[in-house]
Every structure is written in structure tokens, then in C-alpha cells.
């Protein structure tokens, strides 16, 4: 099963849809490294700690 699936067919994309087991509201969320468009590394925690609230939209070009 490939996260970067090559075709939008149910057997390839459906197994990844797992919102029901995502982190709970009200509990500390997991932190991860991220990169800006110049390939400089940062962390999700560096983003959320900079504002009272942070809106994080997930998505892609396609």
C-alpha cells in the first residue's frame, strides 16, 4: 500500500482515510518536521506556538 498512490482508485486511496482515529480534541497533538518552499526545515510546533490559534489546512495541488 503506497501513500503516494499513482491512481485514484478505491483500493489505493480508501485505506488511507482514517479521520476517525485522528488525534482527539483537547489533547496535545503530535508534532512533526515540515519544510518551507525553500526546503528549510521547521516544525509544526514552531508554527502553532507563534499564534494564539493556528488554522492548518491539509491538501495538495491535485
Amino acid at each position, binding site marked *: 500500500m*503506497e*501513500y*503516494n*498512490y*499513482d*491512481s*485514484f*482508485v*478505491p483500493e489505493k*486511496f480508501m485505506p*488511507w*482515510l*482514517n*479521520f*476517525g*482515529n*485522528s*488525534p*482527539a*480534541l*483537547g*489533547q*496535545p*497533538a*503530535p*508534532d*512533526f*518536521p*515540515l*519544510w*518551507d*518552499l525553500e*526546503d528549510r526545515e*521547521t516544525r*509544526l*510546533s514552531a*508554527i*502553532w*506556538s*507563534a*499564534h*494564539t*490559534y*493556528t*488554522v*492548518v*489546512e*491539509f*491538501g*495538495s*495541488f*491535485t
Partner: protein
Amino acid sequence: MNAIAERFAHAGVGSIFLYTHEAHPGEYYPHLTSFEQKLRHARDLRDKLGVTRPILVDALDGACHRAYGSMPNMIWIMTNAGVPVYKADWTDANSVQNALEYFVAVPGRRRAGERLAPFHVERMDLRNQDREAFYKGLERNGPKAVREFRAAFG
């Protein structure tokens, strides 16, 4: 979502777009095989689709995206302590705006003397579903993306 980010920036609300994987790969934007390709696609999101919020790119294996549920266009609101207070399996500007209006009012309510305690709420919001516009978007990815979505959902 860009407009909402601008509208709430003065109220201490930051906004980012977190680049995941290609949900509908096509001939023009195929599935990701390298981090360099992922950066290129993310830059096109800024340059061709006009995302003005800071774009941050997840690892090639989608470690962050997978940990948060892997939905293709989900959205979260986090506190500065890293605690999520809103999550939606789809991004809808009206829903997000409604939530932000509620949250940014909290400091003022506390200053006014209200004693506030957290509680959980579930709600089923409604999003716009413009299938024609969606298919036009898929055409940017290539005919394969359109063909595969029609086969999956009609």
C-alpha cells in the same frame, strides 16, 4: 481560505497550508516520487492556484498527514500549546470562519468576568458541493485524474 486568514490575522490567528500528497494524480501532476518534486508541486500551488498563506511541506512519506487522519482536504485549528480545538474532515470556509469567531471571542469573555471551562461538541456542518467546478479543477491534473474520479464516483 486566504481571505479568512487575512481577516483573522489581526486577532492572533495564524494560517498555513500543509502540503500532503497528490489526491488525484494525473499526467500533468503525477504521484510523488521525490521530495524535490513535492516542493515543485507545492510551489505551483502558490504560483498557479494563488495560495497566499505560508505553505509547509510534509515529509515524502506523509508522516504528519497520516498521523492526523490522511483526509485529502481536512482542516484543524490548534492552540498555541498544540491542542486541537476544531477539526473537520473537509475544509469549508463558512465552518472555519464560524469556529474562529467563537474562539477569538474567548479572551474578551474572560476579561469580562465569565468563568469558562472546555466541553466537547459534535456538529454536522454543510459544505458547498460544486461538482462542475471540481471537475474543472481535476482537468489541471490531466485527463487521467478526471477519468479515475468519474469511474470512482460518477
